[in-house]
């Protein structure tokens, strides 16, 4: 809201220097966002709140300033040059919908010499950032910016009278507005209609046909109160925004309507007009002022400070509230009609706090009270992140939106959630996978000269689940290019399938979600031969693989990119293995390496599972230490070397016991996989 300091001074004396004045305004909640000097006046741009329509005019601002400065408002008088006839002799106003129009006032002014406004009025209109039109239109704007009450001027000659109805629009009715746009009206919109047609959309905008022009002589001034919700719905449906509807939808001061009409009429009499003897004022159900009980005890309970009764009474009094002391420190408070925001005791306490000064309320650090902590996945996410940082993955965060064209290529198998009013068509869905963002980040970085891109994201994906929507916390990983920068000790390795798999394994191990397993998957995200499902306790919790070339093309990415996506909500819902401590062994272990040939199409995982199931005495653990094919190895075979660690926890192991165990392993592997032992157990 633009506030002219000169205009404000017509209502209240402001003597303090500007910086101090602005600081004090800030401390009662009126923040001046910027100010500038125009023609010796200072124009403040004050931030206003949706619940304070009373501050949308100079009068209302002056009330706040007067209370702040502990001074009072200057009285203004609006004399009229009167006609013998009453307004009702010219216009017969009928409210047909009292809910949408609780009060309608109007006054006729005849014989106005329409023309350019005098300088003082032009200056005020210009100070508000508007262009002066003519004295009649400028007067309506003046009243709006002076008092916050929107008024409208009709050219009386253009109203097919005398009957003027405030009613809902009829089916099929339309109006050409002051903006020159013809809009179709619906039956829930309130209009001002003469005997032929709507002449204004109530509280929103006037009609062009009944508008004041330079030829206008007789004017009908409207000053009414309209239902805020109705005005809001109408202006939204019609996509019209005016200074009037901005105020009506926040709530106008119903008590002030007649005064605003008289103020306008008084100004028009300065331009030769003569006002009708009496305004019309249709107010079928006059409203009583709200009354609230205010307890002094509640003030200190809520603010944490004791405030004198005297201060409470003075502040509320200055702001226009009526106070009756019921008993000691309890008041019955009458809320002035312009304060539509005040409904409860807490609202009054805020008023007292604002003027008492937030800075004077003490600073109390509450005593530390330990409540039972709500369990969260925070620790798990932190551990997971640490494992990934350790593996050289950088963390990214992407916007949750997805481009429908790209989403279709992904074929995530999930029905996306659509946004009804998206920012752009390229962001009209919510992502069903984290992979899109990761590939986009990869392309962005590659295009800027970063070759090695190893990234992860932890965030929600969203999808439709029949009629409902769902969101799941996912972990996405992707890796491509060199694993580090070139160094004099040697070139860095390249990201590969097993680098990614190692990171996935590390994530699961770090949270003790073990044993986990992998299974060939064939998911559309990945190349056929490089697609694995990740399983924990037999349930699929994610997938990984080499990203399909179809998706790389989508982001103009060359070279292999490896990616994984895990459903963390699903995983975190499962029980991890408990942490167990094992004392360091007292007796030494014996290590035996076993090299053998096996059919090339036998996956290592099968051998591993067979060994896991085998009961071998003293076997502590085993690992694969070499894997080789080609060269001197027959084409249909591969060579594996496994390292077995044996230990007797209770005694030093004897060679013959290890021999026995080793023989058992060999025998079992021979029968299950037809392995052929290699000489010396060495790899080529």
């Amino acid at each position: 809201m633009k506030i002219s300091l000169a205009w404000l001074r017509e209502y209240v004396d402001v003597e303090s220097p500007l910086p101090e004045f602005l600081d004090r305004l800030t401390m009662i909640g009126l923040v001046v966002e910027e100010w500038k000097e125009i023609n010796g006046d200072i124009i403040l741009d004050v931030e206003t709140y949706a619940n304070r329509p009373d501050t949308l005019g100079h009068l209302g601002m002056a009330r706040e300033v007067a209370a702040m400065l502990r001074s009072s408002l200057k009285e203004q008088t609006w004399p009229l040059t009167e006609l013998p006839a009453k307004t009702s002799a010219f216009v017969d106003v009928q409210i047909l919908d009292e809910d949408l129009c609780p009060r309608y006032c109007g006054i006729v002014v005849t014989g106005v010499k329409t023309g350019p406004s005098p300088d003082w009025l032009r200056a005020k209109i210009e100070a508000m950032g508007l262009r002066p039109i003519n004295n009649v239109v400028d007067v309506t704007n003046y009243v709006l910016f002076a008092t916050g009450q929107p008024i409208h001027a009709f050219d009386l000659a253009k109203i097919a009278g005398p009957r003027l109805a405030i009613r809902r629009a009829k089916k099929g009715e339309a109006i050409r507005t002051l903006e020159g746009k013809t809009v179709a009206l619906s039956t829930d919109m309130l209009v001002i209609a003469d005997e032929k047609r709507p002449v204004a959309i109530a509280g929103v905008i006037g009609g062009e046909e009944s508008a004041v022009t330079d030829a206008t002589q007789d004017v009908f001034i409207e000053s009414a109160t309209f239902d805020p919700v109705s005005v809001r719905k109408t202006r939204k449906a019609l996509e019209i925004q005016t200074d009037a509807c901005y105020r009506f939808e926040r709530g106008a001061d119903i008590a002030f309507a007649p005064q605003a009409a008289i103020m306008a009429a008084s100004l028009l009499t300065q331009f030769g007009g003569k006002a009708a003897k009496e305004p019309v004022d249709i107010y079928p159900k006059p409203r009583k002022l709200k009354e609230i009980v205010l307890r002094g005890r509640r003030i200190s309970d809520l603010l944490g400070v004791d405030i004198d009764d005297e201060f409470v009474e003075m502040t509320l009094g200055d702001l226009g509230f009526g106070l009756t002391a019921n008993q000691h420190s309890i008041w019955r408070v009458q809320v002035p009609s312009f304060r539509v925001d005040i409904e409860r005791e807490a609202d009054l306490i805020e008023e007292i706090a604002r003027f008492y000064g937030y800075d004077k309320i003490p600073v109390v650090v509450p005593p530390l009270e330990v409540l039972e902590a709500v369990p969260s996945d925070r620790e798990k996410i932190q551990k997971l992140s640490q494992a990934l940082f350790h593996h050289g993955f950088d963390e990214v965060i992407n916007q949750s939106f997805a481009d429908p064209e790209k989403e279709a290529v992904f074929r995530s198998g999930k029905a996306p959630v659509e946004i009804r009013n998206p920012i752009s068509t390229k962001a009209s869905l919510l992502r069903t996978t984290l992979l899109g963002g990761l590939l986009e980040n990869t392309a962005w970085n590659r295009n800027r000269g970063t070759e090695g891109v190893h990234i992860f994201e932890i965030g929600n994906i969203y999808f439709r689940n029949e009629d409902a929507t769902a969101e799941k916390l996912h972990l996405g990983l992707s890796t491509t290019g060199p694993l580090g920068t070139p160094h004099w000790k040697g070139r860095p390795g390249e990201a590969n399938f097993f680098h990614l798999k190692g990171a996935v394994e590390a994530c699961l191990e770090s949270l003790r979600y073990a044993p986990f397993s992998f299974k060939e998957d064939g998911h559309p995200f990945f190349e056929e031969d490089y697609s694995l499902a990740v399983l924990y306790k037999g349930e699929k919790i994610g997938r990984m693989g080499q990203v399909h070339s179809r998706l790389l093309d989508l982001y103009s990415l060359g070279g292999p990119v490896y990616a994984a996506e895990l459903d963390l909500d699903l995983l975190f819902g499962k029980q991890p293995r408990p942490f167990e401590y094992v004392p360091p062994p007292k007796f030494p272990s014996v290590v035996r390496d076993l090299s053998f040939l096996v059919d090339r199409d036998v996956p290592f995982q099968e051998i591993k599972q067979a060994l896991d199931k085998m009961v071998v005495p003293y076997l502590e653990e085993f690992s694969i230490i070499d894997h080789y094919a080609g060269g001197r190895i027959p084409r249909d075979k591969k060579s594996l070397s496994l390292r077995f660690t044996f230990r007797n926890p209770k005694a030093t192991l004897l060679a013959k016991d290890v021999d026995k165990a080793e023989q058992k392993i060999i025998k079992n592997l021979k029968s299950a996989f037809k392995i052929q032992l290699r000489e010396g157990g060495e790899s080529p």
Partner: protein
Amino acid sequence: MLSPNIRKFKTTIDVYRTKLEEQSAQIQDLRALEELHHQFLSRKRGTITLLFEQLKEFDPEEKPAAGQLLNALKNEVQERFSALETKLKTPAKPKGEIDISLPGEKLYWGAPHPVRLFQQEIENIFVSMGFSIEGGPEIETDYYNFEALNFPPHHPARDDWDTLYITDKLLLRTHTSPVQIRVMEKKKPPIKIIIPGKVFRRETPDPTHLPMFFQIEGLVVDKGITFAHLKGTLEYFLKRLFGERIKIRFRPSFFPFTEPSAEVDIECLACGAKNPDCRICGGTGWKEILGSGMVDPQVFKNVNIDPETYSGWAFGMGIDRTAMFAFGISDMRYFFENDLRFIRQFTLK
């Protein structure tokens, strides 16, 4: 002039000296060195020992000169042997091949996203004050996002929260505040929680606005909670985050779900309130950092908590927006472009 005896003795010594030089030059390992050591310094048959035996045969006046010659040799032998030993005991180092001024080898360590990093800093402060961390859905109902928070349908206050809608009743939450309602519906006071998370607004991307960003919400509900506690807790928090000496200001504001409401400003770190043209604070010297207030009685009624018995306060703060201010980042879009040249800098934070 040297006497003939001395001259002869000197020649002998010189022969051994040459021998020492020749033989020690050939020494390759400690074993050979030990043999040579034995040959020269053995107490029984060592060369030096035998030469000392010869010393006895000199005339008393020739003895000091001869002794001097022999001691010189003995010192040379000992020095050379100890030098050889040191050399043989340190690993072979071909000259000039190892340049220890070369840079070391480093493990590559991934970087946290700056928003997450800052979020954790904030969380840690509140956790240390006994707050728990809560979360809630990002796709919300109109009821939780607006109505229960005292935004009546069709109220202009909703205009301050430009909303992305899924359906008439479903939307992308515009703030983390709906989680307040969800928690208070389930749990009775005392409540002491923070709620970090993603929020959405219908904003066209520019340096200070994005349609998705991060917010952190706090809520305390108990008997006897006052505005003074709100001030105390938030001042403590901001001082931990920005330093003990930071200036803090509470001023009146409006939020539908708090009454009284307060906006909290801190002094502008960019200009120290000294630059009238500062782009961060607009020359006011103050930077708006969070919104807060006492929980509105209507909100309590909506979750069946009696506002006569309980009171509480809440705050909400933009995580990325505050991180921009704390790190001096000029464009919010940097956070979500995910340029690794940007993100990797935060390994140092």
